[in-house]
């Protein structure tokens, strides 16, 4: 029986008001007068009328809501109703919670096939045409994951049951690889053929790889099964094996990862000797460094680009809850203590329409909806998980229009030992049960690992995209971190991420030397899945544990109490094989050595791209008023201006570990760093910072990578970190990485990673890459268009400081303080925000990093902030350092850093930039050049000499003082001035209509 309960607000309904606001903004010409909403639960279950009444009472708050059973009460005189629900198989968290409430209330579990489906009714009133209603429905739903039903007033509202009906055949097929090269290539590109001739989706296996697989099975004297081929494709994918970084490139025989990334870390660790703080690098799901004698701190950053392009909300929820599992899956389970994010997107005001297909039926989501979606996704994923989000950024460029780059990172805390056992080591033992915990398996995200190596295409909605369920994961996390971990109930743990069970069990099997799994035991969301789908599914919120037989009953009980499913699905062995059965039938039997190391090496060759001439590099001559306009204009650009609407909708206070906030100072300026105090009774702190400079890739990827590292380090130093306790993470997002030119650029960037990291002594502890951020589609006019994301390297810095009370913020704090500029200002306007704003040429001189020189000035600032090295006692503040504020000079140049400190402090400044050190001579180069290695610092007048002393022999210049409520700048030929309030409103302007800062500027 299908029932329906509708719940709507009895009072003012701010959800409805927010929809009205959104629709009026997007459709200004439509005479929409009001919107009303109703939450609808469609229940497929056997229920008596009495039970139904009781359930409805539970689902509505009697004070503020009303319910209706069967029909959906509509407001009088509405024109159209839109009902938005999920497509079959898409994660429906609201439906799931309603089901749990219903089951609890009834005192019985639902029978097989019984379920609850949620949907949202919107009633639109006003003078609206059917076309308008359809356009609004398109704005409000994503056809890849949702359906929208539109009803004119007077028509019946149908009950829609989103039950999954799979008519697929669930037998295991053999695949014939003894065929010609053309067919083999086709299998690699389009997938295994079904009986009806359709294909199952790309394996992303090359002909060379398929030949190796064919030869392997020839030796076994049998044909591979579909699940074996799929498992190999997953295990060998670029996503899982990082083949481009691993395989030989030109003269770099060991691959660029081993030489430049891992090589840098090895060299630095050796140089650091006893001061080496690395504990577990590159081997586990996150990288770990020592925090103190008791704890380790972990960090990992991931991207989730392709799924976020299709479903920005689901994609970014999955990005963040997925990387949370890389923390839970580090060692024997670290506790996530902070999330970070980065959104590389196109200008949300970009109005260009693009399509994925030539027939123009599959429209790419508009840039605005991609940003809205990814922002909401991290909101849901982070806030619901109870993990603070103290740091993030937005970078805007047209090259991110095809595929956005969505970064999510998580910092974790792990005791070094529990019960005398090292928590950062793990090993599945022979005979341990293979236990899957968390959510159930559906067709979600199948081919995710291989899909991310391909460019965007249409596909079956239930399989292309996963949506995270943060609460299931939180329950799972509580069971592990609060209970199971401390009792030593499992010998190994890992995350089910890319490749699902295939990836997780396959990896863990290396520890014991083999595994045997029975897929018939895996709990499924719905029937009808073939063994290969169960093995490869990327359904979220799952982890795999290796559990000693004796410990299993205790562990199972813990998960039961936490209401988390835990299922024995097999045993770890030392057979040297990965054996998978489906019931009694063996469906996979591959040697582990072949599965993991059988992949043939690809020899890669790079080629230097033809020299680029990108036009002007010399600054132009601008008049005073023009320069003033430029300053206000650059502050209003999305790459520079406030993203407070994001920062303030992410909980950065949960867990109580926040020390410096994402929005700093009275004027609430976004910071590029954050300081945490993870252990309440220890004064030690963690400094987080990010650095990115993808725009420089247009000219030189070596300099791009160098600037990214330099920026991350500089941001961390300004927050109080020091170079001797600072590690970094690399996240490469490249495009068209199979072309020799892109490979050349990649090699250059990797080379810079080695050079700069070694020069600074900051080891890489973890990294990840995403190599095909390309989009190929069609314009409105039907023309083929290819958009490739600029080669982008995100560097995340993580450092430990002895005392959080020394942490530094960016805001000017007192009139009369002296302002110093650290570092040289050179004429390096190439690919700068300033040139992007002028919109004509890129220029060809991008900033060069002189790491040796910069290291000295960074160390001096660390000393100046840190004081005399004594623990900083608030009772004795005179022991403190002499720095009052510090900000790193980055995107937008010196004038932007100056403006940010002024806006943050709501205090003006009077500075002279006439005789800066460095070769920048023109006014615009002085103001806007993005030369690296610079920091802007304010210092208490009585501490000036102490401060200058720490900088003896280094590049330092006093440029003026903090003063009044205007910023005035002396330049060689001119003088410009703006009030703090003007700067503040420019800074907060770009996203102000996004629920951004209504404040700021009110202070001045």
């Amino acid at each position, binding site marked *: 029986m299908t029932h329906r309960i509708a719940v709507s607000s009895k009072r003012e309904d701010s959800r409805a008001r927010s929809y009205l606001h959104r629709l009026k903004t997007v459709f200004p010409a439509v005479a929409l007068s009001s919107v009303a909403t109703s939450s609808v639960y469609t229940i497929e279950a056997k229920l008596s009328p009495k039970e139904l009444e009781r359930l409805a009472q539970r689902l509505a708050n009697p004070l503020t809501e009303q319910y209706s059973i069967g029909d959906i009460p509509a407001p009088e005189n509405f024109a159209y109703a839109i009902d938005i629900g999920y497509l079959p198989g898409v994660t429906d968290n609201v439906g799931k919670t309603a089901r749990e*409430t219903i089951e609890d209330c009834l005192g019985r579990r639902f029978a097989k096939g019984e379920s609850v489906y949620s949907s949202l009714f919107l009633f639109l009133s006003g003078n609206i045409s059917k076309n308008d209603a359809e356009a609004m429905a398109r704005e409000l739903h994503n056809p890849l994951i949702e359906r929208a039903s539109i009803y004119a007033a007077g028509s019946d509202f149908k009950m829609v049951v989103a039950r999954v009906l799979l008519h697929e055949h669930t037998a295991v097929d053999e695949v014939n690889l003894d065929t010609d090269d053309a067919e083999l290539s086709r299998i690699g590109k389009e997938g295994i053929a079904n009986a009806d001739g359709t294909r199952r989706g790309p394996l992303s296996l090359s002909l060379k790889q398929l030949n190796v697989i064919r030869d392997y099975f020839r030796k076994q004297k049998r044909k591979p099964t579909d699940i074996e081929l799929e498992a190999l494709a997953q295990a060998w994918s670029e996503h899982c094996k990082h083949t481009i970084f691993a395989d030989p490139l030109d003269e770099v025989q060991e691959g660029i990862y081993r030489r430049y990334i891992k090589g840098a870390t090895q060299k630095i660790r050796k140089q650091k000797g006893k001061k080496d703080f690395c504990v577990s690098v590159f081997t586990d799901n996150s990288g770990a460094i020592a925090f103190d004698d008791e704890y380790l701190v972990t960090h990992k950053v991931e991207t989730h680009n392709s799924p976020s392009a299709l479903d920005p909300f689901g994609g970014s929820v999955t990005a963040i809850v997925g990387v949370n599992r890389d923390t839970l899956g580090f060692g024997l389970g670290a506790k996530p203590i902070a999330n970070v994010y980065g959104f590389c997107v196109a200008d949300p005001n970009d109005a260009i329409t693009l399509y994925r297909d030539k027939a123009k039926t599959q429209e790419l989501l508009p840039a605005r909806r991609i940003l809205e979606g990814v922002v909401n996704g991290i909101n849901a994923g982070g806030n619901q998980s109870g993990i603070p989000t103290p740091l993030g950024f937005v970078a805007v460029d047209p090259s991110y229009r095809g595929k956005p780059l969505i970064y999510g990172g998580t910092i974790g805390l792990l005791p070094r030992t529990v019960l005398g056992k090292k928590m950062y080591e793990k090993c599945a033992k022979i005979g341990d049960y293979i236990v899957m915990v968390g959510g159930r398996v559906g067709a979600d995200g199948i081919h995710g690992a291989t899909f991310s190596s391909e460019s965007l295409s249409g596909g079956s909605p239930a399989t292309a995209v996963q949506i995270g369920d*943060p609460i299931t994961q939180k329950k799972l996390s509580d069971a592990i971190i609060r209970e199971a971990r401390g009792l030593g109930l499992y010998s190994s743990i890992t995350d089910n991420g890319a490749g699902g069970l295939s990836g997780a069990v396959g990896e863990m099997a290396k520890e014991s030397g083999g595994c045997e799994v029975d897929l018939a035991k895996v709990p499924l969301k719905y029937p009808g899945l073939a063994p290969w789908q169960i093995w490869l599914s990327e359904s979220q919120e799952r982890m795999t544990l290796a559990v000693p037989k004796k410990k299993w009953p205790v562990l199972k009980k813990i998960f039961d109490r936490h209401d988390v499913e835990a299922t024995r699905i097999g045993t770890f062995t030392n057979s040297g094989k990965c054996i998978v059965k489906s019931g009694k039938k063996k469906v996979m039997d591959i040697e582990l050595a072949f599965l993991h190391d059988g992949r043939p090496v690809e020899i890669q060759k790079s080629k230097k791209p033809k020299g680029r001439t990108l036009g002007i590099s010399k600054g132009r001559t601008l008049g005073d008023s023009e320069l003033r306009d430029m300053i206000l204009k650059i502050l209003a650009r999305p790459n520079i201006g406030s993203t407070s609407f994001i920062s303030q909708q992410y909980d950065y206070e949960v*867990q109580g570990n926040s020390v410096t906030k994402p929005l700093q100072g009275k004027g609430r300026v976004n910071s590029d760093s954050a300081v945490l105090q993870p252990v309440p009774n220890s004064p030690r702190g963690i400094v987080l910072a990010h650095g990115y400079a993808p725009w420089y890739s247009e000219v030189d990827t070596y300099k791009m990578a160098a600037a990214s590292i330099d920026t991350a380090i500089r941001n961390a130093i300004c927050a109080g970190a020091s170079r001797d306790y600072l590690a970094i993470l690399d996240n490469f997002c490249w495009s068209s990485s199979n072309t020799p030119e892109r490979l050349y650029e990649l090699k250059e960037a990797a080379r810079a990673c080695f050079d700069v990291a070694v020069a600074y002594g900051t080891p890489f502890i973890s990294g990840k890459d995403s190599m095909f951020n390309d989009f190929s589609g069609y314009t409105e006019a039907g023309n083929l268009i290819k958009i490739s994301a600029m080669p982008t390297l995100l560097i995340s810095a993580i450092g430990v400081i002895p005392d959080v009370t020394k942490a530094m913020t960016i805001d000017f704090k007192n009139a009369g303080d002296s302002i110093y500029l650290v570092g040289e200002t050179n004429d390096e306007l190439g690919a700068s925000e300033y040139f992007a704003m002028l919109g004509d040429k890129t220029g060809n001189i991008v900033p060069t990093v002189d790491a040796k020189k910069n290291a000295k000035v960074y160390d001096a600032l660390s000393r100046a902030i840190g004081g005399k090295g004594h623990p900083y006692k608030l009772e004795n503040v005179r022991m*403190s350092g002499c720095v009052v504020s510090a900000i790193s000079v980055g995107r937008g140049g010196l004038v932007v850093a100056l403006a940010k400190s002024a806006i943050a402090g709501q205090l003006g400044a009077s500075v002279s930039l006439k005789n800066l050190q460095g070769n920048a001579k023109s006014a615009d180069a002085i103001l806007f050049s993005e030369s690296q290695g610079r920091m802007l610092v304010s210092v208490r007048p009585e501490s000036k000499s102490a401060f200058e002393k720490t900088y003896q022999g280094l590049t330092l210049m006093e440029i003026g003082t903090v003063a009044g409520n205007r910023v005035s700048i002396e330049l060689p030929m001119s003088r410009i001035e703006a009030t703090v309030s003007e700067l503040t409103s420019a800074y907060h302007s770009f996203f102000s209509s996004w629920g951004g800062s209504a404040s700021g500027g009110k202070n001045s």
Partner: protein
Amino acid sequence: MKKPHIIIFSGYGLNTEDETKSAFEIAGATADIVHINDIIARPAILAKAQIVVFPGGFSYGDDTGSGKAYANRIKQHLGDALQKFLARDTLAIGICNGFQIITSAGILPGALISNDSARYICRWVDVDVSGNSPWLSGIKTISIPIAHGEGKYYAPAETLAKLKSENAIALRYVEGETSKHFALPANPNGSLENIAGITGYNGRVLGLMPHPERAVRFTQLPHWTNLRESYLRQGDTLSTEGPGLQIFKNAVKYFS
């Protein structure tokens, strides 16, 4: 000093148990974090407790309305046990999601509905204290953070009148130190009569949207680096404590 036995509810997406426990520890007590299913299995443990905490979080993702599903679970299984607990001379507190839960479960009157902005917001607020709740003794105004999407307090006129006559509107958003510093509106969510928290059971039960457990150290304040600088110049010494700690100290003291 005699220490009270404190139980902090856990499970299904509540998430501020650890910092709440830590706040009680700084205040000199110890607290047990207990999964609701364990309390349902052995409701008798409530009979030994002096303080019960419904902490913040996102129980059941707030999918069907904030706090509603967790409150349903309480109503279904723990209604009697909690009534017995509250009939004794005990204390209870519901913080943020915990406040939403205890209103939804009928322990305190009213409801928390969506912020006027229809957006989740994290920031600091300033609240004025009135009434005579043991949780709040000695506190006049206090700056603490909020983080919620559904924090607007609503109650029908007769309930509001009753709350007023009982002096039970304990916390009201006011323009104070942090809202002035950051030039933010005093009332962050459109709450009726600026209500940030109410009490019941003669002040023994406190429900509030702000998070005092996130304001127990000086370095948690949103403007502490600025304060550090001005204290330094004045030659003042600073407290290492944050303003929220007093609430936990008060509760512990109530039983000593």
